[in-house]
């Protein structure tokens, strides 16, 4: 059975700091997605990673995929308050399986 594990589940960080969110999954897949969800809102697609070694960057967020290690990372550079949200990774198998989410709070 496909399992998707994110860590940490909760992350409180200061503005200007860097941090990485990890997403491990248990079954081979070559497609991984990162989503952002603000409280009471729906999911917003951030990145679609389709191959081993894929790296995508948008603003202060950078995502990478290592299919051999079954690991994806979401790196946050110089965090700002606006990045406060819950971030989900999701892995494509027969369907798209989501991790439990990382609730990020960026404090001034």
């Amino acid at each position, binding site marked *: 059975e496909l399992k998707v594990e994110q860590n940490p589940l909760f992350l409180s960080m200061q503005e200007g700091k860097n941090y990485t969110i990890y997403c491990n999954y248990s079954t081979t897949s070559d497609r991984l997605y990162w989503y952002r969800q603000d409280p009471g809102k729906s999911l917003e*697609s951030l990145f679609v990673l389709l191959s081993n070694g894929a790296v995508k960057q948008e603003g202060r967020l950078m995502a990478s995929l290592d299919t051999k290690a079954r690991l994806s990372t979401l790196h946050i550079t110089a965090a700002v308050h606006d990045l406060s949200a819950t971030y989900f990774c999701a892995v494509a198998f027969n369907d798209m399986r989501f991790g439990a989410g990382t609730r990020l709070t960026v404090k001034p």
Partner: protein
Amino acid sequence: EAGVAQSPRYKIIEKRQSVAFWCNPISGHATLYWYQQILGQGPKLLIQFQNNGVVDDSQLPKDRFSAERLKGVDSTLKIQPAKLEDSAVYLCASSLLREGLSGYTFGSGTRLTVV
């Protein structure tokens, strides 16, 4: 392009009552998904349609949940009878390709509270 439309936004019902949710995907998106998101958890797939056919409903509690996608466009998800544990946000998503290579677009969701 218009996004994925869902209604209602909120619904409060008593246990054992019935409820239905509606979803209109992005025009041209052949694949439609219903997800259940319980507070504090990631979304869980309930059912996936390709046009008007069911691709995967293995995680749909078929004794109480049903879904249809008539004419391969709009979809409805029904719960009958509802239980307390059905309280969740029900998200509809659509994608251009079945494999989701372009990612999924989610609607705003319907927040269901069963009391």
